């Protein structure tokens, strides 16, 4: 999957790189440095080990239900004026999103490292559920950190995690959402680093996490590329939503070597980029350090991290994966942003036209495609449908009844 191309981010040593240009790094307390070294070494060894890869492939096939389908969205394409639209159906995975690709991989790695306990952060609960699922499968202890505010409005996912045997710990600090749940998970890891593996849910955090999560998510792009080639050929563009950015990195990497395929990442513009209520770190953030890496970051003039806002829980994070920061600066992929209202409209459109209720996160990718549809008429476009919308229907129903968006700080 490391196809050689001018679009391949420059890497230091082999599989894992600490930096993407200036971004990434390991800005963490000293206590964690040996654990990150251990993790990087364990991952590199596992990745070279055929039996690890075989175990992972089998888990993805038999537990997660991979490969995920590629679906031609004919009626949507017609609605867009004649765009040939394909959906990579990560929504069909077990637990309902691409998150399971990463949690199965990391849990398998943690077991190989002799860890007996898994921890994770979650917003609305998708990554928490996927982590709890992997922990149950491997018989490992599991603790999920979740902001109090998110727990209140995502009670069903809390119950789901508990059913799976995980302990869900409420985080009452700070904004009581994803950002703070992530900080608390890091604090747990600093404290229990010997026996515990921290499963970060996106291509964020200190090295080697952004690379590690990427490698577990590139299965999306690898499959999608093969599926496209086997049917209609390479797409002219790939659209994916970007919060932390793991589904986007996962699908983009399948097409990094394809100069004719444009890569488009879509951030959440929330109530609008100029309202201050958004999650568009790449569009409006400035380089800064949060949760162990340097990337674009929503922050104030004093360097305090701002709260992110989006109707979509999964995009609601003030940072973004460092590789996206690099891809943006190099012009290797293009980043746009889409408002809550635009995403909600696409949410409804896909449901009505294709019989697929998408999650609000990929609804942003669909909305961006809609905004530039004219440009893609008569051409092939691939959209990463990173998750299904079951988790969002209650929120959308509330919005339709005229309720206020409860958007801040949910899933990543």
């Amino acid at each position: 999957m490391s196809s050689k191309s001018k679009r391949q981010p420059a890497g230091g040593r082999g599989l894992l790189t600490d930096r993407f240009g200036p971004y990434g790094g390991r800005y963490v307390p000293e206590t964690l440095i040996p654990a990150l070294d251990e993790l990087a070494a364990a991952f590199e060894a596992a990745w070279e080990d055929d039996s690890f890869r075989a175990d992972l492939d089998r888990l993805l096939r038999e537990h997660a239900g991979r490969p995920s389908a590629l679906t031609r969205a004919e009626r949507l394409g017609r609605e867009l004026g004649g765009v040939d639209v394909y959906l990579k159906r990560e929504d069909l995975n077990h637990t309902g999103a691409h998150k399971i690709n990463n949690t199965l991989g990391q849990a398998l790695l943690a077991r190989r490292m002799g860890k007996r306990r898994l921890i994770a952060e979650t917003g609305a609960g998708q990554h928490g559920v996927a982590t709890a699922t992997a922990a149950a499968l491997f018989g490992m202890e599991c603790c999920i950190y979740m902001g109090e505010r998110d727990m209140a409005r995502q009670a069903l996912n809390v119950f789901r995690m508990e059913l799976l045997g995980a302990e869900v710990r409420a985080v009452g600090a700070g904004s009581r959402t994803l950002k703070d749940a992530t900080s608390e998970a890091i604090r747990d890891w600093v404290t229990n680093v010997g026996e515990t593996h921290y499963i970060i849910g996106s291509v964020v955090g200190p090295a080697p996490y952004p690379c590690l999560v990427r490698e577990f998510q590139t299965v999306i792009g690898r499959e999608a590329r093969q599926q496209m080639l086997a049917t209609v050929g390479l797409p002219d563009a790939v659209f994916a939503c970007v919060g932390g950015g793991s589904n986007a990195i996962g699908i983009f990497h399948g097409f990094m070597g394809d100069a004719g395929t444009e890569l488009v990442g879509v951030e959440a513009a929330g109530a609008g980029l100029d309202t201050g209520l958004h999650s568009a770190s790449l569009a409006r953030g400035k380089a800064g350090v949060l949760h162990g890496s340097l990337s674009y970051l929503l922050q104030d003039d004093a360097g305090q991290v701002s709260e992110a806002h989006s109707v979509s829980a999964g995009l609601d994070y003030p940072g973004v994966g460092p590789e996206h920061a690099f891809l943006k600066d190099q012009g290797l992929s293009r980043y746009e942003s889409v408002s809550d209202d635009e995403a909600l409209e696409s949410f409804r459109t896909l449901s009505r036209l294709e019989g697929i209720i998408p999650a609000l996160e990929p609804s942003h990718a669909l909305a961006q495609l809609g905004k530039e549809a004219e440009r893609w008429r008569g051409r092939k476009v691939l959209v990463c449908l990173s998750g299904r919308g079951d988790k969002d229907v209650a929120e959308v129903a509330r919005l339709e009844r005229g309720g206020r968006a409860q958007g801040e700080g949910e899933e990543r």
Partner: protein
Amino acid sequence: MPNGQSRNSIALTFERLQASKRRAFIPYITAGHPDPQVALDVLTMLADEGADVLELGVPFSDPIADGPTIQRATWQAIEKGVDIGRVIAWTAEFSAQRDTPIVLFSYLNPVLRYGPERFLQDARDAGAAGILITDLPVDADPELERRLSAGGLDLIRLVAPTTPRVRAVRIAEAAQGFIYYISRTGVTGERERLRQGLREDVETLRSVTDLPIAVGFGISNADQARAVAEIADGVVVGSALVRKLEEDGLSSARALAREIRTAIDAAL
């Protein structure tokens, strides 16, 4: 007194202490907590109670290395408008009156936002003696670390219980002023007892460095301070003081500082 002698004031402080066979009392407080109006009073109180070095925390919204007490103090300070600029201003005011060296203790992001060069310049002009960046471990960002350690302030580095010996050697090479040894894995905060094996770890660290070694994280009372003073050159007390300041105010924090100073001096 701003400028001038601050460069070596940490080294001079430890030399003076060693000559009189005493150990350093190093309080940590979050700047501007519990209230910006008493920021200077808190520093002066700690100096009066015999602090040898002051660690002055710059508040950051996402303090991943800190436990609940310092998190709370941090957010209160931010809400009351405390930022790097004000912390530096208090440093200048304090240093105009007192000699106690100040180490500015920060997470990296506020420093990056302020501008590393400007931060160094302003901190130096204010009379600060050192800086400590919690989330900038040795070799994480060599170019930035080079700039920060060449800026006329001691760049204090941390060693953790998880740090392998070969890395401890590397950290000792890079360290300036003193080495801050983290007494246990985990975040800041009070603990009932010290970790087994702390003495051995400090002795091991001593075999790779000539710099003074201060121990912090979890040291909450006079007994623990005394025990740490038996094995290290300096004792860092943070959360316990911060909690006293929050719950009972300045006089109560003063009483704790006095107890700890006395306990440290009773160690040898």
